């Protein structure tokens, strides 16, 4: 069966420090991969998605970036965090077909101080 792992679960970082959140998927090949941010326990904002290695689409211009160095690995990064980067970050995957649902990781809560 497929599983998705996301870490770290909790992160407290000072303003201006770098960020790296990692997500890996097991049990499937060539998944679509997604990073969402959820602010204040409410709506989801799509940050990045990827349909293949090295293929990243950015939905929101900001100081975050994403990379997909391997088929089932998706990394969210920042060189210098802002206070506004605080939030709950969710990684997700879906099958590459048109009709599959999203499967989410357990999330990473980032607090920027």
């Amino acid at each position, binding site marked *: 069966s497929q599983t998705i792992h996301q870490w770290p679960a909790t992160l407290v970082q000072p303003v201006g420090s770098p960020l790296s959140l990692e997500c890996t998927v097991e049990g499937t090949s060539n998944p679509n991969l997604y990073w969402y941010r959820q602010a204040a326990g409410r709506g*989801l904002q799509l940050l990045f998605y990827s349909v293949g290695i090295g293929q990243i689409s950015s939905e929101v211009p900001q100081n975050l970036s994403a990379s997909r160095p391997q088929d089932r690995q998706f990394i969210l990064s920042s060189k210098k965090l802002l206070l506004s980067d605080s939030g709950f970050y*969710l990684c*997700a995957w*879906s099958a590459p077909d048109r009709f599959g*649902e999203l499967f*989410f990781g357990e*999330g990473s809560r980032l607090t920027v101080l």
Partner: protein
Amino acid sequence: AQSVAQPEDQVNVAEGNPLTVKCTYSVSGNPYLFWYVQYPNRGLQFLLKYITGDNLVKGSYGFEAEFNKSQTSFHLKKPSALVSDSALYFCAVRDIIGQNFVFGPGTRLSVLP
């Protein structure tokens, strides 16, 4: 562009009563619709989806949803609510061209004992 609306920010229902969480959508082409549930500090869990076929879709934990094309709605329902159903519920539509998922703002369901 696809969009999803959840007109109720909060829904309160007594345990044992039926519940409905509303969702309306706007898409070009055939809609691919999904419902997710989120418990505090957790990732989203998939409940059910509509792709094609029967307008009444059954999903996990006794939930079902009714697709209504003329009203562009996909309301989530359950015949008898449980206190453990209290959570945040998201409706989503899949963009079949861009492979993105567009989420509604979420509805917080409180089931009162």
